[in-house]
Every structure is written in C-alpha cells, then in structure tokens.
C-alpha cells in the first residue's frame, strides 16, 4: 500500500521537497514508519524530535497506517515564550 509523506520546515529544506510517496507493508505502524524514514531518507539524518500526524491528526506511535494516508512529519512547533 502507498502513503504520502509531508515534509515541513527544516525537514522540507533538507529534503528539498514538500512530499514523497512511499510503499509500506500493510500493518505498518507510525513508529515503524518513522524508524524507517530516519534510516532511509537522507533528509532525516540529524533530525531531532519529530511527531507524526496521520490525516491531519497527531497520532500515537502504535497507530496502524492505511493505504492513502497522509503522514506529516512534524518537527518541534514554533514555541517561544
């Protein structure tokens, strides 16, 4: 099955693009996907803490992905005092 990965901010700049498609095994969880991306995608090297959102909602690490899901990689948000 195929999911769409969105890059933002520093990740988008490192990747040099806003998104990519990725084939994943059925049953893949958010955590598994993130581990794989950290290992395989050069833009993810050196990236710090990242949260994931699936279809515009923050997700838990054990959430199972589905075909066509939109996965956003979310670096720390702007914060500030």
């Amino acid at each position, binding site marked *: 099955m195929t999911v769409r990965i969105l890059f933002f901010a520093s990740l988008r700049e490192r990747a040099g693009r806003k998104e990519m498609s990725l084939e994943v095994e059925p049953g893949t969880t958010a955590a598994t996907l993130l581990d794989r991306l*950290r290992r395989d995608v050069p833009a993810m090297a050196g990236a*710090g803490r990242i949260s994931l959102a699936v279809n515009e909602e923050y997700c838990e690490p054990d959430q199972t992905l589905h075909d066509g899901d939109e996965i956003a990689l979310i670096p720390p*948000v702007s914060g500030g005092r």
Partner: protein
Amino acid sequence: MIRLTDEPIRIDDLMSATADPAAGATVVFVGMTRDNNEGRSVERLEYEAYPGMAEKELERIAEEASQRWPIARVAIVHRTGVVPIGEASVAIAASSGHRGDAFDAARFTIDRLKEVVPIWKKEFFEGGAVWIGDQKGEEGVWKNEGGDAPSE
C-alpha cells in the same frame, strides 16, 4: 474567527469577531517579531504552516477554551510567510462577561497554540538563519526517543 493568512493581521478584525453585547471584557494577545532573540540581532521571521491541520488544531483550542471558561467568543489569526520586525505573527482575542475569564482564556489559547499547532518559525538573524525549536530537545506531542540526533 479562526484564520491563517499571509497578509498583515488587523487587530480590529479580531475585535469585531469577538464583539458581543453580553461581553464586558476582551483580552487580546499579539505576538510580534522582535529585533533580538537569545543575543542575536534578528532581521525577520518566516512562518510555515501545515495549513489544514493547523486550522483544525486552532479550532480545537478555541473549542476547548470555550468549554473551560464562560467566554463569549474567541478569535485566532496566525500569519504565515515573512513577518518583519514589529509586525504581528499571531493574534488572539477572547471576550467574556468579566475580565478574569477573558485573561485566562486568552492566556490558555496562546500557550496551547505554541505547544501543538503545526506552524514553524525560521529566524533570520545577522549572519544566518535557524528553524526555532529544531536544535533543542523540546518536547513534541509525540517524539521518537530513539531517533534523537546531535544538534547540527
């Protein structure tokens, strides 16, 4: 009123959006680009949003504020793109019958916004640029602990 915009934010729009005959108090918070940060001389900020999700999260925060305090209306506007020094990147207004609730709701709304809404800030300073939060071990909503890498 919940809005992302790449235009300058007009405070009057938030005042209109939160106007209510039963409201005796409105508290407005405005976050602006300041000319310095952690000792650096800042030239400008640039904001990037995940638009659909950012709006959903803003709606959710406004809804949560409305449930926690007896507030009349909440408005949130966040600017994206370049925000020069002195201009507003975000503005929040909360109106209520009494001022205590308006203050508390406005404070809650901006604090929560800064924690969860997927909007990122790039600081352009004298001699460089940096995505804020990128190098620190800041708490994400969910973080992959094993994947931490040294600061760049």
